[in-house]
C-alpha cells in the first residue's frame, strides 16, 4: 500500500492528478462533444432532448454493461435473472457484460460496445460529458430510495471524533473517481476546513470499498471513505463492521444510472422502458428477477438533473472525468 501526502490544492494529491484528472482531460478532448463546455456550465450537462438526433438502430442482441467490482462473474450471475426478464419482454437476447473498472464501462459506452449500461453516479456524470446524448432511462432504487449516503468511518475505539482529529492521520479512499469513496469524502474535508497539506493528511486509494473497510478495521488506515451499502455488504461477508463508527456523513448521492446509447431507435427504447416499469419488487415477476440482488428493489424513472448534486460537488475541484467509482450494485 502506498500512502501519499495529500498536497491539499483542491484537496487532490498527485495520485488524484494522475489517476483521475488525466482521463477526464483526455475524455474532454476525445469526447463527442469536444466543443461543449465543462460540466459546471450549468446544473445539467445534458443537452435538450430535441437537440439529440433520434437514433434508428434496432439491435438484434442487447449488451447490458455492468461494473463487476465484486467480480465480473459474480455480478453477471446476480444480474442473469434481470437479463432473462428483459429479454422475455423486448424479444431479443440480453447479454450481460461486466467491466472490471468503471472507466472500462465508460469506454464501452463511448465506443458503442454496449446498448444499455448500469453506471455508478460519478461515472454517469463523466460519461454524459463524453456522450451528451446518452439517454438516462432510470435510477437504481435501493432500500426504497434513489440516494445513498457516503460515510467516513473510523474504528469505534478511535480517538478521532471530529474532522480536525484527522490531522496527521491516514485516510483510505477507494478510487479517485469514486463518488462516496473519494469525491464526496474530499468535499466534506474541504468543507470542514481540513487542508491536507497543512494537516499532513496521508491518503491512499485502495481500489475497493471492502479494502477500505478492511484497512480501517485492521488499523492500517485511521479513517476510510465508503458508503452504507458497502458496510452492509462487508457485514454479510463477515467483517466486524460493529467495530466501526461513522465519523461523518459526507453526502447524499444519487444511485447508479441505467442508460441507453443514443443511436437506438426511440420505439425500441420505449419498449425497453415499458419492461423496466415492471422490473421492481412491487410486481411479482419483477421481484423474482431481482431475487439475487438483495438491496436493489427496482429502477425508477429518472431525470438527469438528479445528478446535478454530483456535478456540484465535482465542479469546485476542477476535476472532470476519471476512472472508477464506488463498487456498483451490491450483490450477495
Amino acid at each position: 500500500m502506498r500512502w501519499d501526502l495529500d498536497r491539499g490544492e483542491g484537496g487532490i494529491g498527485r495520485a488524484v492528478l494522475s489517476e483521475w484528472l488525466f482521463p477526464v482531460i483526455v475524455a474532454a478532448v476525445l469526447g463527442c462533444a469536444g466543443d461543449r463546455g465543462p460540466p459546471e456550465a450549468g446544473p445539467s450537462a445534458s443537452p435538450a432532448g430535441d437537440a439529440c438526433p433520434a437514433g434508428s438502430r434496432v439491435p438484434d442482441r442487447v449488451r447490458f454493461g455492468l461494473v463487476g467490482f465484486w467480480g465480473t462473474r459474480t455480478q453477471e450471475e446476480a444480474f442473469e435473472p434481470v437479463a432473462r426478464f428483459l429479454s422475455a419482454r423486448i424479444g431479443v437476447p440480453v447479454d450481460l457484460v461486466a467491466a472490471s473498472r468503471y472507466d472500462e464501462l465508460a469506454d464501452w459506452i463511448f465506443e458503442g460496445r454496449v446498448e444499455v449500461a448500469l453506471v455508478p453516479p460519478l461515472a454517469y456524470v463523466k460519461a454524459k460529458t463524453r456522450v451528451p446524448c446518452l439517454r438516462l432511462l432510470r435510477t437504481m432504487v435501493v432500500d426504497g430510495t434513489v440516494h445513498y449516503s457516503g460515510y467516513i468511518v473510523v474504528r469505534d475505539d478511535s480517538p478521532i471524533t471530529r474532522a480536525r482529529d484527522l490531522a496527521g492521520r491516514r485516510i483510505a479512499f477507494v478510487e479517485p473517481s469514486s463518488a462516496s469513496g473519494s469525491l464526496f469524502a474530499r468535499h466534506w474535508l474541504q468543507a470542514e476546513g481540513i487542508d491536507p497539506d497543512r494537516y499532513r493528511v496521508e491518503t491512499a486509494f485502495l481500489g475497493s470499498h471492502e479494502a477500505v473497510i478492511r484497512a480501517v478495521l485492521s488499523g492500517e488506515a485511521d479513517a476510510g471513505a465508503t458508503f452504507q451499502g458497502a458496510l452492509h455488504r462487508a457485514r454479510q461477508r463477515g467483517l466486524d463492521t460493529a467495530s466501526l463508527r461513522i465519523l461523518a456523513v459526507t453526502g447524499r448521492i444519487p444511485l447508479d444510472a441505467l442508460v441507453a446509447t443514443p443511436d437506438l431507435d426511440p420505439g425500441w427504447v420505449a419498449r425497453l422502458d415499458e419492461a423496466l416499469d415492471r422490473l421492481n419488487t412491487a410486481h411479482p415477476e419483477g421481484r423474482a428477477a431481482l431475487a439475487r440482488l438483495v438491496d436493489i428493489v427496482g429502477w425508477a424513472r429518472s431525470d438527469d438533473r438528479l445528478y446535478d448534486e454530483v456535478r456540484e460537488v465535482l465542479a469546485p475541484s476542477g476535476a472532470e472525468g476519471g476512472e472508477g467509482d464506488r463498487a456498483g450494485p451490491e450483490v450477495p
Partner: protein
Amino acid sequence: MTLRVKVLASSLGVTILAMVLLGVLMFRAHRATVLAEAELRARAFLSMLSVASTGPLAAGRIEDLDGMLARLIERNLEDLDIRFVVILDAQRRVIGHTDPSQYGRRLSEGFYADASEADSPRVREDGDVLLVSAPVFTAVPGQPGIRWGTTVAGVGLERVRADLLGLFWRAVLTILIVVAIATLIVGSRLERLVLRPVRRLTEATRSFAAGDRAARAMVAGDDELADLAGTFNHMAGQIALHTHRLEEEIRARTRDLEEANRRLEALAVTDPLTGLYNRRHFEHVLSLEVRRAQRMGTRLSLLMMDVDHFKRYNDTHGHPAGDEVLRALGRLVRERVRSTDVACRYGGEEFTVILPGTSRTDAMVLANDLRLNMEAHPFENEATQPGGRLTISIGVATYPADASDEVALVRAADQALYRAKENGRNRVEVAQAD
C-alpha cells in the same frame, strides 16, 4: 299585540336567527377545522410512516414493518387518536397492521381500492373513523416513480365529536346569554327611546281630542319621535289658536244673528208707523193671554180705541199729517201703559191695548187717562176738527165678564167702541153684557 311585544319579538327573532346562523357557520367551520386537524395529524403521521416503510416495503422486509408497527403501538397511538394503521403492498394485501389478525387480507374494495389507485392521499369518513391514506413510492422529482404500496391510518373521531358536542352546547349557551342580554338592552332602549315617547304622544293626543287644548307631548331628544312630538305640539297649538279664533268668530256671529233675529222679530210684530205691535202680534198675544187668564183664573181687559174723525183730518191735511197724529197717539199709549201691557195698531186709526190681570175699573182708569192725554196733546191744525180738538174714543171689555174667548172679547170691545162713537166720541165705553 302591543308595539313593545312586536318590536321585542322582531328584535329577538332577528337576534336569534343571526346567532343561529352564525352558530351554524361557526360550528361548520370548526367542524371542518377539527376534521382538517385530524386529517393533517394523520397525514403527518403517515408521511413519516411512508418514508420509514418505503425500504422495508420495497424489499419485502415484513419483519421490519412489523417491528416498526409494534414500536408505534408502544408509543401509544391513542395520543394521536389513531386507532389503527394499515400497510398495503402494491397488490393491496395487508402486510402490516396494528392488528396482526388482519395480516394477509386483500383489501380490493371501497376506500382501500381507491387509496391504492390514487397517487395522492385520500380521506374519507367511515362511521366513527376518519380514514386517511398516503401512497408509498420512490420517485425522482418530476417523475412518476415506483408505487410500493399504501399506508392507511384510521383516526378515531370520538374526541372530535365530543369536542364538537361541547362546542354545540357552548354555542347554545352563548346564544341564550346573548339573546337574554339583547332582550334586556333592546327592551330598555325600546322603553326609553320609543315606547315612553309614544305613550306620551298618545296621552297628549287623547287629552287634546277630549278637549284639553293645553295638552302637549313632553318628549325630549332629537330623534324622529321628538320631532313628531314637536310637530304634534305645534299642530295642537295651531289648532287651539284657530279654535279659539273660530269660537270668537262664532260668538260674534251668533250675537249679530241674534240681534238680527231680534230685529227681524221686532219688525215682524211691529207697526212701522207707530212703533206699536201690529195686528198679527195683537191676535197672537191676545190668544195667549186669554188662555193664560183661563188657566190662571185671572182677569184680562182689552181697550180698543179709534181717532175721532180721523178721515176728515187726513183728507183735509194730507196723509203725512194723519200719520203724524197716529205716531203721536202711539207715543201717548206707549208712555202710559205698563210694561206688561201690549199696545197695538189694530189697523188704520184703530189701536188696542191688552191689559193682563186688569179689572174693568182699572182698565177704565187707564182708558180715560189715554183719552185725556190725547185730548190734551196739541196737534197741528186740530182746530179744524169738530170740537176743535183731535180726540179718541175707547171701548173697554173685560174677560171673563164680557167674553168667554178672545174673539168675543174683541167683538165686545169693538161694540163698546162703537157705542162710544155713537154716544158722541171722545169718551170711554165699557162692554155691556148681552
